[in-house]
């Protein structure tokens, strides 16, 4: 056995806990998870059945942690997991799963399949079976501080630009601010309007905030590729900056997996609770709305829908807040069929968008989103994840659909009442 395979199988063993054992014990191979997965429904390829993507992990569980399996292994009656198999499974685990977790909502015996895929990636990465694109992004995140290679000067340029545009000063490294805002590289590079939007909203709502020049990157490719040590190091950077600036809360921006990383996985990765809170920007905006601190004029009259980023709603728990905010700014807010925690993934989450090998596949499975949109024919789509946004734009172009994709935060900023002061 090669050293890397050994490392991978050991990582599998370490990842298996009581929930995983309960899940594998319960699977009756009914195949319902396939009907919940856009990679199956849009390709008809049975290999994309979610539970099948876990087969090597299941065998390790069976051979190591079941009474019968241990004996079968001892007598050479069971087939050990091989390196070739892991090679075959690489595309199933990384290219055809966005960790969207829709299968976990549908499984009749209650298996949280996405929870297991996340764990399986730890073993795949340890065995040297992670995709090139994700390895590159992860290396850049560690050495440069951003998976897209965005450095501080790039952020500073965008901040200067936002300050000129809004006439407001964007606080950087301000100690004692209430909130520290994180950004995703994609926001910095492709959607810098987000920074202006936040500045305008926080000015009106009188929120004290800051950006840290030492830890502004919210994304965490460590959790996408499945290397907990790297994921933990990226979380530690944010924790150190938040503690240094003595902020009460850290704001996770419009990015799905960033929220999963910093809000839910973060404390578990570093092995201790935070001394500050983590809120998603939509949670904070909804709180401000409730407190009457957001003054809106002139609602959107277009037919708008909201696309739930999986890690923010289904896997993250921010479901109602965007709907309250949509009602605040839109007169004509329509829901897609199967929305909220049952929304269909755009097809690019969970590291799939950083994995060039999956480019064709993710555009193909976007067909599921097309069908959902066709059912309600909106004038524009609002979302809260720049990765979803980019992929929605690409997918819409691919399918010849002309629907603009907006950010919820930016939409709110555009409708702020003029400050009279």
């Amino acid at each position: 056995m090669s050293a890397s395979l050994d490392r991978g199988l050991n990582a599998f063993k370490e990842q298996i806990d009581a929930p995983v054992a309960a899940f594998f014990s319960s699977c009756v191979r009914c195949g319902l998870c396939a009907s919940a997965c856009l990679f199956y429904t849009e390709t008809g390829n049975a290999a994309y059945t979610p539970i099948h993507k876990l087969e090597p992990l299941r065998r390790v569980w069976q051979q190591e942690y079941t009474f019968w399996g241990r004996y079968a292994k001892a007598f050479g009656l069971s087939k050990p997991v091989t390196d070739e198999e892991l090679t075959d499974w690489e595309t199933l685990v990384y290219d055809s799963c966005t960790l969207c977790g829709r299968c976990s909502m549908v499984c009749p015996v209650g298996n949280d399949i996405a929870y297991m895929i996340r764990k399986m990636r730890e073993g795949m990465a340890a065995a040297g079976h992670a995709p090139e694109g994700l390895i590159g992004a992860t290396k850049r995140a560690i050495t440069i501080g951003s998976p897209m290679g965005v450095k501080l000067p790039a952020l500073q340029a965008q901040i200067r630009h936002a300050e000129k545009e809004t006439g407001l000063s964007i606080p950087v490294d301000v100690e004692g601010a209430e909130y520290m805002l994180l950004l995703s590289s994609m926001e910095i590079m492709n959607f810098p309007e987000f920074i202006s939007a936040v500045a305008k909203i926080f000015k009106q709502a009188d929120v004290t905030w800051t950006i840290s020049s030492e830890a502004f990157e919210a994304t965490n490719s460590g959790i996408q590729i499945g290397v907990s040590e790297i994921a933990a190091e990226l979380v530690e950077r944010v924790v150190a900056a938040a503690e240094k600036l003595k902020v009460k809360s850290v704001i996770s921006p419009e990015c799905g997996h960033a929220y999963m990383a910093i809000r839910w996985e973060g404390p578990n990765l570093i092995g201790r609770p935070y001394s500050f809170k983590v809120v998603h920007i939509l949670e904070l905006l909804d709180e401000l709305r409730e407190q009457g601190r957001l003054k809106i004029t002139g609602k959107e009259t277009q037919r708008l829908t909201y696309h739930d980023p999986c890690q923010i709603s289904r896997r993250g728990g921010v479901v109602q807040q965007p709907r309250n905010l949509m009602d605040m700014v839109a007169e004509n807010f329509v829901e897609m069929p199967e929305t909220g925690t049952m929304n269909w993934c755009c097809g690019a989450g969970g590291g799939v968008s950083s994995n060039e090998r999956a480019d064709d596949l993710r555009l193909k499975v976007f067909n599921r989103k097309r069908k959902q949109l066709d059912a309600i024919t909106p004038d524009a789509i609002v979302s809260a994840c720049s990765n979803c946004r980019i992929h929605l734009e690409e997918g819409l172009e691919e399918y010849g659909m002309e629907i603009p994709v907006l950010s919820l935060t930016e939409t709110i900023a555009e409708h702020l009442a003029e400050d009279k002061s």
Partner: protein
Amino acid sequence: MSETELLLWVRGPALQIATIIFLLGVVVRIAEILMLGRKKDLAEARGSAVAGGLRTIISRSIPDRATLQRSLFNEVAGYIFHIGFFVTLLFFAPHILLFQDILGVSWPSLPTPLVDAVTVVTIIALLAVLVHRLLHKVMRFLSRFQDYLVWLVTILPLVTGYLAFHRVGIATPTMLITVHVLSVELLMVIFPFTKLMHAFTLFMARYYNGAIAGYKGVNS
């Protein structure tokens, strides 16, 4: 050994052995799951894990509407054979007498003609499930030897019970009942080693699923 002696052995020592394997096996399987443990979640909770877990144990019995439409056959046939199996097992008068013998408790039975009809429907549903497994692209792809074995040992008690009750003339009534009891014992013996375990572990799986989601404030 006469037919009567064989029946006595099957209903006596054989049933005891099968029961011991069944109970011990189930306990070991559940214990080996629980012993793996679970790390404490250090993120600040938004909702209750326990409430979410208990909620999902119940709520996962009912599919969401779109899934029901997409997998209508699977859902309907699945409900029928599960409910039918338990009705036959638990509400057939002679079965209740046996449970009373062993456990000392009894409960009202359903009219025998009704249980008889339920048995037929259940057998048909199980046959349909097998055909579906063989024809459906995903199910055929996922299926292993065990899936067919489990199907067989599940349908056998129903079929042999039906034959015994109607005293179908392919064998003596004594032999028919002997075969029926043996088929139940076969089911009990392979139970802990196969996916039949889901009858117990699905409550754990649903609990964990609901707890993981509930902690984050999601109803799963």
